[in-house]
Protein backbone atom coordinates (compact mmCIF):
# COMPACT_ATOMS: atom_id res chain seq x y z
CA UNK A 1 0.00 0.00 0.00
CA UNK A 2 2.94 2.27 0.68
CA UNK A 3 4.04 2.24 -2.99
CA UNK A 4 0.50 2.92 -4.13
CA UNK A 5 0.25 5.91 -1.78
CA UNK A 6 3.62 7.19 -2.94
CA UNK A 7 2.50 6.96 -6.57
CA UNK A 8 -0.44 9.22 -5.79
CA UNK A 9 1.62 11.50 -3.56
CA UNK A 10 4.53 11.86 -6.00
CA UNK A 11 2.28 12.44 -9.02
CA UNK A 12 0.52 15.34 -7.33
CA UNK A 13 3.64 16.70 -5.63
CA UNK A 14 5.78 16.76 -8.80
CA UNK A 15 3.07 18.22 -11.02
CA UNK A 16 2.30 20.76 -8.29
CA UNK A 17 5.95 21.75 -8.23
CA UNK A 18 6.08 22.10 -12.01
CA UNK A 19 3.03 24.37 -11.97
CA UNK A 20 4.57 26.38 -9.15
CA UNK A 21 7.51 27.11 -11.46
CA UNK A 22 5.12 29.26 -13.47
CA UNK A 23 4.56 31.58 -10.50
CA UNK A 24 5.34 35.09 -11.73
CA UNK A 25 5.91 33.89 -15.32
CA UNK A 26 2.37 33.17 -16.55
CA UNK A 27 1.39 34.63 -19.91
CA UNK A 28 -1.38 36.62 -18.16
CA UNK A 29 -2.01 37.46 -14.54
CA UNK A 30 -5.19 35.34 -14.47
CA UNK A 31 -3.38 32.33 -15.93
CA UNK A 32 -0.52 32.80 -13.51
CA UNK A 33 -2.97 32.74 -10.60
CA UNK A 34 -4.85 29.77 -11.99
CA UNK A 35 -1.68 27.70 -12.32
CA UNK A 36 -0.48 28.51 -8.83
CA UNK A 37 -3.93 27.66 -7.46
CA UNK A 38 -3.81 24.33 -9.28
CA UNK A 39 -0.37 23.79 -7.75
CA UNK A 40 -1.74 24.55 -4.31
CA UNK A 41 -4.54 21.99 -4.68
CA UNK A 42 -2.14 19.33 -5.94
CA UNK A 43 0.44 19.89 -3.22
CA UNK A 44 -2.35 19.85 -0.63
CA UNK A 45 -3.52 16.51 -2.00
CA UNK A 46 0.03 15.13 -1.96
CA UNK A 47 0.30 16.01 1.73
CA UNK A 48 -2.71 13.82 2.52
CA UNK A 49 -1.06 10.86 0.79
CA UNK A 50 2.41 11.50 2.27
CA UNK A 51 1.00 11.78 5.79
CA UNK A 52 -0.82 8.50 5.33
CA UNK A 53 2.25 6.79 3.85
CA UNK A 54 4.45 8.06 6.70
CA UNK A 55 1.99 6.74 9.30
CA UNK A 56 1.82 3.34 7.60
CA UNK A 57 5.60 3.08 7.55
CA UNK A 58 5.69 3.70 11.27
CA UNK A 59 9.41 4.43 11.03
CA UNK A 60 9.24 7.90 12.49
CA UNK A 61 9.48 9.61 9.11
CA UNK A 62 7.20 12.54 8.36
CA UNK A 63 5.52 13.84 5.22
CA UNK A 64 8.46 16.24 4.82
CA UNK A 65 11.00 13.40 4.90
CA UNK A 66 9.11 11.60 2.16
CA UNK A 67 8.84 14.67 -0.07
CA UNK A 68 12.24 16.22 0.55
CA UNK A 69 14.66 13.46 1.51
CA UNK A 70 14.11 10.73 -1.04
CA UNK A 71 16.19 10.49 -4.20
CA UNK A 72 14.90 10.26 -7.75
CA UNK A 73 15.00 6.45 -7.89
CA UNK A 74 12.61 6.27 -4.94
CA UNK A 75 10.00 8.49 -6.58
CA UNK A 76 7.00 6.65 -8.02
CA UNK A 77 5.45 9.39 -10.17
CA UNK A 78 4.61 8.95 -13.85
CA UNK A 79 7.09 10.36 -16.36
CA UNK A 80 4.45 12.74 -17.71
CA UNK A 81 4.30 14.98 -14.65
CA UNK A 82 8.06 15.54 -14.43
CA UNK A 83 8.34 16.76 -18.05
CA UNK A 84 9.48 20.39 -18.22
CA UNK A 85 6.90 23.15 -18.56
CA UNK A 86 8.03 24.22 -22.04
CA UNK A 87 5.76 26.91 -23.44
CA UNK A 88 2.24 27.49 -22.16
CA UNK A 89 0.80 25.07 -24.74
CA UNK A 90 3.11 22.31 -23.51
CA UNK A 91 1.99 22.92 -19.92
CA UNK A 92 -1.69 22.93 -20.91
CA UNK A 93 -1.34 19.70 -22.89
CA UNK A 94 0.53 18.02 -20.01
CA UNK A 95 -2.11 19.14 -17.54
CA UNK A 96 -4.95 18.02 -19.74
CA UNK A 97 -3.42 14.56 -20.27
CA UNK A 98 -2.99 14.28 -16.50
CA UNK A 99 -6.37 15.78 -15.51
CA UNK A 100 -8.37 13.67 -17.95
CA UNK A 101 -6.84 10.59 -16.30
CA UNK A 102 -6.82 11.97 -12.73
CA UNK A 103 -10.53 12.84 -12.74
CA UNK A 104 -11.72 9.33 -13.67
CA UNK A 105 -9.05 7.73 -11.48
CA UNK A 106 -10.27 9.63 -8.41
CA UNK A 107 -13.88 8.90 -9.27
CA UNK A 108 -13.02 5.21 -9.06
CA UNK A 109 -10.84 5.69 -5.97
CA UNK A 110 -13.89 7.09 -4.13
CA UNK A 111 -15.03 3.43 -4.02
CA UNK A 112 -11.77 2.28 -2.43
CA UNK A 113 -12.14 -0.32 0.31
CA UNK A 114 -9.76 1.80 2.37
CA UNK A 115 -11.85 4.45 4.12
CA UNK A 116 -9.11 7.00 4.44
CA UNK A 117 -8.11 6.74 0.77
CA UNK A 118 -11.75 7.04 -0.26
CA UNK A 119 -12.12 10.18 1.88
CA UNK A 120 -9.05 11.76 0.29
CA UNK A 121 -10.41 10.87 -3.15
CA UNK A 122 -13.85 12.41 -2.49
CA UNK A 123 -12.16 15.58 -1.32
CA UNK A 124 -9.66 15.73 -4.19
CA UNK A 125 -12.23 14.97 -6.86
CA UNK A 126 -14.04 18.24 -6.12
CA UNK A 127 -10.84 20.15 -6.84
CA UNK A 128 -9.84 18.09 -9.85
CA UNK A 129 -13.25 18.69 -11.45
CA UNK A 130 -12.18 22.31 -11.81
CA UNK A 131 -8.69 21.33 -12.96
CA UNK A 132 -10.13 19.25 -15.79
CA UNK A 133 -12.49 22.02 -16.78
CA UNK A 134 -9.66 24.56 -16.80
CA UNK A 135 -7.28 22.49 -18.93
CA UNK A 136 -10.06 21.32 -21.29
CA UNK A 137 -11.10 24.91 -21.94
CA UNK A 138 -7.52 25.93 -22.66
CA UNK A 139 -6.92 23.00 -25.02
CA UNK A 140 -10.00 24.09 -26.98
CA UNK A 141 -9.06 27.76 -26.88
CA UNK A 142 -5.51 27.16 -28.11
CA UNK A 143 -6.40 24.44 -30.62
CA UNK A 144 -9.28 26.39 -32.09
CA UNK A 145 -7.45 29.71 -31.77
CA UNK A 146 -4.86 31.25 -34.06
CA UNK A 147 -2.64 29.41 -36.50
CA UNK A 148 0.27 29.70 -34.08
CA UNK A 149 -1.60 28.57 -30.96
CA UNK A 150 -2.99 25.62 -32.96
CA UNK A 151 0.48 24.64 -34.15
CA UNK A 152 1.97 24.91 -30.66
CA UNK A 153 -0.64 22.84 -28.84
CA UNK A 154 -0.60 20.21 -31.61
CA UNK A 155 3.21 20.01 -31.24
CA UNK A 156 2.78 19.70 -27.49
CA UNK A 157 0.40 16.73 -27.80
CA UNK A 158 2.63 15.09 -30.41
CA UNK A 159 5.58 15.44 -28.06
CA UNK A 160 3.85 14.32 -24.85
CA UNK A 161 1.73 11.51 -26.29
CA UNK A 162 4.43 8.92 -25.58
CA UNK A 163 4.12 9.60 -21.82
CA UNK A 164 0.37 9.06 -21.79
CA UNK A 165 0.43 5.28 -21.83
CA UNK A 166 2.02 4.96 -18.41
CA UNK A 167 -0.98 6.55 -16.71
CA UNK A 168 -3.17 3.64 -17.81
CA UNK A 169 -0.64 0.82 -17.46
CA UNK A 170 -0.55 -0.65 -13.95
CA UNK A 171 2.70 -1.23 -12.10
CA UNK A 172 2.86 -4.49 -10.09
CA UNK A 173 1.93 -2.67 -6.86
CA UNK A 174 -1.16 -1.22 -8.58
CA UNK A 175 -2.33 -4.65 -9.70
CA UNK A 176 -1.88 -5.74 -6.10
CA UNK A 177 -3.86 -2.70 -4.93
CA UNK A 178 -6.69 -3.53 -7.31
CA UNK A 179 -6.98 -7.12 -6.20
CA UNK A 180 -6.83 -6.08 -2.54
CA UNK A 181 -9.75 -3.70 -3.20
CA UNK A 182 -8.19 -0.38 -2.23
CA UNK A 183 -6.80 0.47 -5.68
CA UNK A 184 -8.26 1.38 -9.05
CA UNK A 185 -8.64 -0.97 -12.01
CA UNK A 186 -7.03 1.15 -14.74
CA UNK A 187 -8.61 -0.96 -17.45
CA UNK A 188 -12.08 -0.06 -16.20
CA UNK A 189 -11.51 3.70 -16.41
CA UNK A 190 -9.70 3.59 -19.76
CA UNK A 191 -12.78 3.91 -22.02
CA UNK A 192 -13.92 7.08 -20.23
CA UNK A 193 -10.45 8.63 -20.34
CA UNK A 194 -10.21 7.88 -24.08
CA UNK A 195 -13.66 9.30 -24.68
CA UNK A 196 -12.78 12.52 -22.89
CA UNK A 197 -9.52 12.89 -24.84
CA UNK A 198 -11.21 12.29 -28.19
CA UNK A 199 -14.04 14.68 -27.40
CA UNK A 200 -11.86 17.59 -26.28
CA UNK A 201 -9.25 17.12 -29.03
CA UNK A 202 -11.93 17.10 -31.70
CA UNK A 203 -13.61 20.20 -30.26
CA UNK A 204 -10.18 21.82 -30.31
CA UNK A 205 -9.80 20.89 -34.01
CA UNK A 206 -6.67 18.94 -33.09
CA UNK A 207 -5.42 15.71 -34.62
CA UNK A 208 -5.23 12.84 -32.14
CA UNK A 209 -1.65 11.53 -32.29
CA UNK A 210 -1.13 7.86 -33.15
CA UNK A 211 -0.74 5.51 -30.22
CA UNK A 212 2.79 4.26 -30.87
CA UNK A 213 5.57 3.26 -28.47
CA UNK A 214 4.75 4.43 -24.95
CA UNK A 215 7.44 5.36 -22.44
CA UNK A 216 7.29 3.82 -18.98
CA UNK A 217 9.39 3.34 -15.88
CA UNK A 218 8.48 6.26 -13.63
CA UNK A 219 6.26 4.17 -11.38
CA UNK A 220 9.16 1.84 -10.61
CA UNK A 221 11.75 4.57 -10.18
CA UNK A 222 13.30 4.78 -13.65
CA UNK A 223 12.85 8.44 -14.48
CA UNK A 224 13.78 10.85 -17.23
CA UNK A 225 16.75 13.13 -16.54
CA UNK A 226 14.36 15.98 -15.74
CA UNK A 227 13.32 14.65 -12.33
CA UNK A 228 16.82 14.98 -10.85
CA UNK A 229 16.99 18.67 -11.72
CA UNK A 230 13.51 19.22 -10.39
CA UNK A 231 14.36 17.54 -7.07
CA UNK A 232 17.60 19.51 -6.78
CA UNK A 233 15.51 22.65 -6.67
CA UNK A 234 12.52 21.31 -4.74
CA UNK A 235 14.63 19.67 -2.03
CA UNK A 236 17.28 22.37 -1.80
CA UNK A 237 16.17 24.00 1.45
CA UNK A 238 15.71 20.73 3.34
CA UNK A 239 19.09 19.42 2.14
CA UNK A 240 20.95 22.66 2.85
CA UNK A 241 19.30 23.26 6.23
CA UNK A 242 18.46 19.79 7.56
CA UNK A 243 15.42 19.40 9.83
CA UNK A 244 14.00 22.84 9.13
CA UNK A 245 10.24 22.86 9.63
CA UNK A 246 7.43 25.30 8.85
Amino acid at each position, binding site marked *: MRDFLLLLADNTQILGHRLGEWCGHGPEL*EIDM*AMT*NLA*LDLIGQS*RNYYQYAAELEGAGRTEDDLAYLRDAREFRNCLLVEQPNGDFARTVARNFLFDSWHFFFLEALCQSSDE*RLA*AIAVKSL*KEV*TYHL*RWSSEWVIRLGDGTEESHRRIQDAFDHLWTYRGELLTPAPFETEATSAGYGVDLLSIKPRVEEKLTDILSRATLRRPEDAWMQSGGKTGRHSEHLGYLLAEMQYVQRAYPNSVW
Partner: protein
Amino acid sequence: MKTETDMASINEIWNWLETVVDPEIPVLTILDMGIVRRIEIRENDQVAVSEFDGRTNGEVTFHPENAQVTLFITPTYTGCPAMNMIAAHISMEMATHGFTDISVREVLQPAWTTDWIPESARQKLREYGIAPPEQAARAERLLFSEVSVACPRCQSRNTEKLAEYGSTACKALYRCKDCLEPFDYFKCH
Protein backbone atom coordinates in the same frame (compact mmCIF):
# COMPACT_ATOMS: atom_id res chain seq x y z
CA MET B 1 -11.64 23.39 44.93
CA LYS B 2 -13.19 25.04 41.89
CA THR B 3 -16.45 26.86 42.19
CA GLU B 4 -19.42 26.77 39.83
CA THR B 5 -18.48 30.15 38.37
CA ASP B 6 -15.29 28.69 36.89
CA MET B 7 -17.23 26.17 34.87
CA ALA B 8 -17.77 26.48 31.12
CA SER B 9 -20.33 24.75 28.93
CA ILE B 10 -20.03 23.34 25.44
CA ASN B 11 -22.59 25.90 24.26
CA GLU B 12 -20.21 28.62 25.41
CA ILE B 13 -17.42 27.09 23.34
CA TRP B 14 -19.62 27.21 20.25
CA ASN B 15 -20.32 30.87 21.01
CA TRP B 16 -16.60 31.62 21.38
CA LEU B 17 -15.90 29.91 18.05
CA GLU B 18 -18.48 32.19 16.48
CA THR B 19 -15.95 35.02 16.94
CA VAL B 20 -13.22 33.30 14.89
CA VAL B 21 -13.39 34.49 11.29
CA ASP B 22 -12.10 33.07 8.04
CA PRO B 23 -8.82 34.93 7.38
CA GLU B 24 -9.51 35.08 3.62
CA ILE B 25 -13.14 36.17 3.95
CA PRO B 26 -13.37 38.03 7.25
CA VAL B 27 -17.15 38.57 7.04
CA LEU B 28 -17.70 34.85 7.54
CA THR B 29 -17.04 33.03 10.78
CA ILE B 30 -15.62 29.52 10.75
CA LEU B 31 -19.06 28.31 11.88
CA ASP B 32 -20.72 30.05 8.90
CA MET B 33 -18.35 28.03 6.74
CA GLY B 34 -19.07 24.80 8.62
CA ILE B 35 -15.36 24.26 9.24
CA VAL B 36 -15.66 23.07 12.86
CA ARG B 37 -17.37 19.68 12.77
CA ARG B 38 -17.11 18.42 16.32
CA ILE B 39 -15.92 19.29 19.83
CA GLU B 40 -14.69 16.63 22.23
CA ILE B 41 -14.09 17.38 25.89
CA ARG B 42 -12.55 15.09 28.44
CA GLU B 43 -12.25 15.84 32.13
CA ASN B 44 -11.17 13.02 34.40
CA ASP B 45 -13.53 10.16 33.49
CA GLN B 46 -16.16 12.32 31.88
CA VAL B 47 -16.22 12.62 28.08
CA ALA B 48 -18.64 14.73 26.06
CA VAL B 49 -18.93 15.03 22.30
CA SER B 50 -20.79 17.83 20.58
CA GLU B 51 -21.47 17.69 16.84
CA PHE B 52 -21.75 20.87 14.76
CA ASP B 53 -25.05 19.63 13.37
CA GLY B 54 -27.52 20.03 16.21
CA ARG B 55 -24.91 21.27 18.70
CA THR B 56 -25.48 18.18 20.83
CA ASN B 57 -24.61 18.05 24.55
CA GLY B 58 -24.46 21.84 24.74
CA GLU B 59 -25.42 21.85 28.45
CA VAL B 60 -22.46 19.76 29.58
CA THR B 61 -20.10 21.77 31.80
CA PHE B 62 -16.50 21.27 32.92
CA HIS B 63 -13.46 23.12 34.24
CA PRO B 64 -11.41 24.60 31.37
CA GLU B 65 -8.08 24.33 33.19
CA ASN B 66 -8.61 20.62 33.93
CA ALA B 67 -10.16 19.64 30.63
CA GLN B 68 -8.64 18.30 27.44
CA VAL B 69 -10.44 19.77 24.47
CA THR B 70 -10.15 18.51 20.89
CA LEU B 71 -11.69 20.45 18.03
CA PHE B 72 -12.19 18.68 14.70
CA ILE B 73 -12.01 20.90 11.67
CA THR B 74 -12.40 20.06 8.00
CA PRO B 75 -10.39 21.79 5.27
CA THR B 76 -12.28 23.71 2.59
CA TYR B 77 -9.62 22.94 -0.05
CA THR B 78 -6.85 20.43 0.68
CA GLY B 79 -4.12 22.97 -0.05
CA CYS B 80 -5.83 25.94 1.57
CA PRO B 81 -3.09 27.89 3.39
CA ALA B 82 -5.72 29.48 5.66
CA MET B 83 -6.23 26.19 7.52
CA ASN B 84 -3.08 26.54 9.62
CA MET B 85 -4.07 30.05 10.58
CA ILE B 86 -7.62 28.97 11.42
CA ALA B 87 -6.27 26.20 13.66
CA ALA B 88 -3.99 28.72 15.39
CA HIS B 89 -6.85 31.19 15.90
CA ILE B 90 -9.04 28.47 17.39
CA SER B 91 -6.31 27.50 19.85
CA MET B 92 -5.78 31.14 20.82
CA GLU B 93 -9.49 31.69 21.36
CA MET B 94 -9.71 28.62 23.59
CA ALA B 95 -6.60 29.68 25.51
CA THR B 96 -8.11 33.07 26.32
CA HIS B 97 -10.94 31.20 28.07
CA GLY B 98 -8.62 29.26 30.33
CA PHE B 99 -8.01 26.06 28.37
CA THR B 100 -4.47 24.75 28.48
CA ASP B 101 -4.84 21.32 26.85
CA ILE B 102 -6.10 22.14 23.36
CA SER B 103 -5.72 20.17 20.16
CA VAL B 104 -7.09 20.88 16.72
CA ARG B 105 -7.36 17.95 14.32
CA GLU B 106 -8.31 17.70 10.67
CA VAL B 107 -11.01 15.36 9.41
CA LEU B 108 -11.71 14.75 5.72
CA GLN B 109 -15.04 13.03 5.93
CA PRO B 110 -17.65 14.14 5.09
CA ALA B 111 -15.90 16.32 2.52
CA TRP B 112 -16.55 20.01 2.98
CA THR B 113 -19.09 21.48 0.59
CA THR B 114 -20.36 24.99 -0.12
CA ASP B 115 -23.86 23.54 0.35
CA TRP B 116 -23.20 23.91 4.12
CA ILE B 117 -23.05 27.72 3.87
CA PRO B 118 -26.44 28.97 5.16
CA GLU B 119 -28.48 31.72 3.49
CA SER B 120 -27.57 34.21 6.25
CA ALA B 121 -23.89 33.77 5.40
CA ARG B 122 -24.61 33.97 1.68
CA GLN B 123 -26.21 37.35 2.28
CA LYS B 124 -23.10 38.47 4.19
CA LEU B 125 -20.98 37.43 1.18
CA ARG B 126 -23.15 39.45 -1.21
CA GLU B 127 -22.87 42.52 0.99
CA TYR B 128 -19.11 42.04 1.06
CA GLY B 129 -19.02 41.99 -2.77
CA ILE B 130 -18.56 38.24 -3.33
CA ALA B 131 -21.20 36.31 -5.26
CA PRO B 132 -22.17 33.22 -3.21
CA PRO B 133 -22.19 29.69 -4.72
CA GLU B 134 -25.10 29.35 -7.15
CA GLN B 135 -26.14 25.72 -7.08
CA ALA B 136 -25.75 22.46 -5.27
CA ALA B 137 -22.24 21.17 -5.80
CA ARG B 138 -22.53 18.16 -8.11
CA ALA B 139 -19.55 17.17 -10.18
CA GLU B 140 -21.38 16.44 -13.47
CA ARG B 141 -23.04 19.82 -13.53
CA LEU B 142 -19.80 21.62 -12.77
CA LEU B 143 -18.05 19.79 -15.61
CA PHE B 144 -20.63 20.08 -18.30
CA SER B 145 -22.76 23.12 -17.72
CA GLU B 146 -22.12 26.83 -17.51
CA VAL B 147 -23.28 28.50 -14.36
CA SER B 148 -25.20 31.76 -14.45
CA VAL B 149 -23.90 33.99 -11.66
CA ALA B 150 -25.71 37.05 -10.28
CA CYS B 151 -23.69 40.23 -9.72
CA PRO B 152 -23.47 40.88 -5.95
CA ARG B 153 -23.82 44.65 -6.55
CA CYS B 154 -26.71 45.03 -9.00
CA GLN B 155 -28.09 41.44 -9.03
CA SER B 156 -27.94 41.35 -12.84
CA ARG B 157 -27.37 37.90 -14.34
CA ASN B 158 -25.78 39.47 -17.40
CA THR B 159 -22.27 38.53 -16.23
CA GLU B 160 -19.26 36.78 -17.72
CA LYS B 161 -16.42 34.66 -16.37
CA LEU B 162 -12.97 36.21 -16.70
CA ALA B 163 -10.92 33.49 -15.04
CA GLU B 164 -11.62 30.08 -13.49
CA TYR B 165 -9.38 30.90 -10.51
CA GLY B 166 -9.58 34.26 -8.75
CA SER B 167 -7.86 35.68 -5.70
CA THR B 168 -8.01 32.27 -3.99
CA ALA B 169 -8.57 28.69 -5.19
CA CYS B 170 -12.17 28.81 -3.94
CA LYS B 171 -13.14 31.78 -6.10
CA ALA B 172 -13.47 32.59 -9.81
CA LEU B 173 -13.24 36.05 -11.32
CA TYR B 174 -16.36 37.45 -13.00
CA ARG B 175 -17.45 40.74 -14.53
CA CYS B 176 -20.91 42.28 -14.59
CA LYS B 177 -21.84 43.47 -18.08
CA ASP B 178 -24.51 45.84 -16.72
CA CYS B 179 -22.79 47.71 -13.87
CA LEU B 180 -19.35 46.85 -15.35
CA GLU B 181 -17.87 45.91 -11.96
CA PRO B 182 -15.55 42.91 -11.70
CA PHE B 183 -16.29 40.60 -8.77
CA ASP B 184 -15.26 37.35 -7.10
CA TYR B 185 -17.55 34.34 -7.32
CA PHE B 186 -17.37 31.74 -4.56
CA LYS B 187 -17.37 28.52 -6.60
CA CYS B 188 -19.55 25.51 -5.82
CA HIS B 189 -17.55 22.84 -4.14
